[in-house]
């Protein structure tokens, strides 16, 4: 087991965002988390990355407890985070954004890493001297993913990578996720686009307000009546 979250709870002040939630990710797996707005999917992801404090529960990465690590301590362990809404550095160029991903990290061959990422996302290559702020939303999403991949993660946490993208870019992003996964990176994916997410995912978790109420393979969840009714708009 690469990542294991056991009975975790997170509060924002007095408000419980997630309670007693357990999930895990195996090596080379894509795992999707779907569920309605405000169900706590992003919170679960932030908890894994140390961006919010755990109220209770434990998180293990590679068998090691990572409950109390700060976000910057996750990166060297092999966990990278692509935040919701992309969050680039708008006045820096595409290249500079990529460099920032691996910036001041030891033992990283930045040049070679950048080449790999530009090969994965050819449309970024043409725009590498442009400011991140002028890219289209789809290109920005690729850049955000590329910036995280600069850290050579073993586990990539992606928060709603398809949000606000035009349909053709949504397809590309999901294709790239599969490609990234094929090269050996596990992915924990939070998505509003439940159908696409479950199609690419090996397994999925369905969130309801603050907790997980279903867990199965992606294929089975796609067929489940409950999931269909709630998220797939009646097929």
């Amino acid at each position, binding site marked *: 087991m690469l990542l294991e979250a056991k009975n975790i709870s997170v509060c924002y002040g007095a408000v419980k965002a997630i309670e007693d939630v357990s999930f895990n990710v195996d090596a080379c797996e894509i795992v999707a988390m779907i569920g309605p707005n405000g169900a706590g999917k992003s919170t679960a992801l932030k908890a894994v*990355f140390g*961006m919010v404090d755990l109220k209770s529960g434990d998180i293990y990465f590679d068998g090691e407890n990572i409950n109390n690590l*700060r*976000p*910057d301590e*996750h*990166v*060297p362990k092999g966990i*990278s*985070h*692509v*935040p919701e809404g992309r*969050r*680039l*550095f*708008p*006045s*820096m160029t595409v290249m500079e954004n990529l460099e*920032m*991903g691996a*910036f*001041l*990290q030891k033992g990283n061959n930045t040049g070679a890493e950048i080449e790999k990422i530009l090969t994965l996302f050819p449309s970024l290559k043409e725009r590498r001297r442009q400011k991140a702020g002028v890219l289209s939303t789809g290109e920005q999403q690729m850049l955000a993913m590329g*910036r*995280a991949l600069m*850290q050579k993660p073993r586990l990539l946490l992606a928060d709603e990578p398809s949000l606000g993208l035009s349909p053709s870019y949504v397809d590309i992003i999901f294709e790239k996720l599969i490609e990234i996964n094929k090269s050996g990176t596990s992915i924990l994916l939070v998505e509003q686009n439940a159908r696409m997410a479950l199609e690419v995912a090996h397994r999925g978790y369905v969130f309801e307000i603050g907790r997980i109420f279903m867990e199965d393979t992606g294929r089975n969840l796609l067929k489940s009546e409950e999931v269909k009714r709630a998220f797939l708009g009646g097929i």
Partner: protein
Amino acid sequence: MEYFLHILVIAGIYIILTLSLNLMVGFTGLAALGHIAFACVGAYTSSLLALNHGISPWIGLITGACFASLLGFVIGFPSIRLKGDYLALATFGFGVIVYSVSKNWVDLTRGPMGLPGIPKFAVFGFELQPVWAYLILVFVFVLLTAFMINRIVDSPFGRILKSIREDEVASLSIGKDVNRYKLIVFMVGAFFAGIAGSLYAHYITFIDPSSFTMMESIAVLLMVVFGGMGSIRGSFIGALILVIFPEMLRFLGMPSSVAAPLRQMIYGLLLVILMLKRPQGIVGKYRFM
């Protein structure tokens, strides 16, 4: 002539304050509002060391800057966790506390009576008595500050400050220990402000809490914004113009009793015009908040 040199000395001290605040506000995006508190600590530390213990102002200057930096840590530690406006309010609050301590801890600071007779700096046993000599001293410190801050913002470290300025969540996401960087910036900014305070004290040879009111913090912030956030050149321009311009009123025969409140009004008016017409400052790159 001597008066003109005096104005330049004061402008030089403000340039140091402006540069150091620009590191925090302009280059890192921390809306810190109590900058003069650090100068206050620097000024009182080195003055008291000289007056009570006969310690050389040179050693006092370094000690004062270190104490200011320590205060930067104390103020920064809780404040950096706050966002935008809240950070501004918290640092403002700390500024008020420091002012109030300097006014009310009478046993140490003599409160509103102030500290008279602060010795001047001396080089090879000669006191820097003439204003031009002092101007050279201040000029050296201005260059030193500008050089250091330029080195910082041009370094890989500075690149991360820029990334924090652009998007804090993104900086966290790519694994930067944002709070540690912010705290270092607070301590470095406070250090240079402490130097400015000490330079001021040993120049005027008298300090009292009225030199370190919140109005001064706001004036320095205005110099940063006026010249340009995130611009070294801007800090020179902002401080020079805003120090020299009000002084010219005196040349026009305005009595001090009128010139002083007029200075504040001019500052207020400039701030409004600036926000409307040129929010990024004269040579700056970023808007304020």
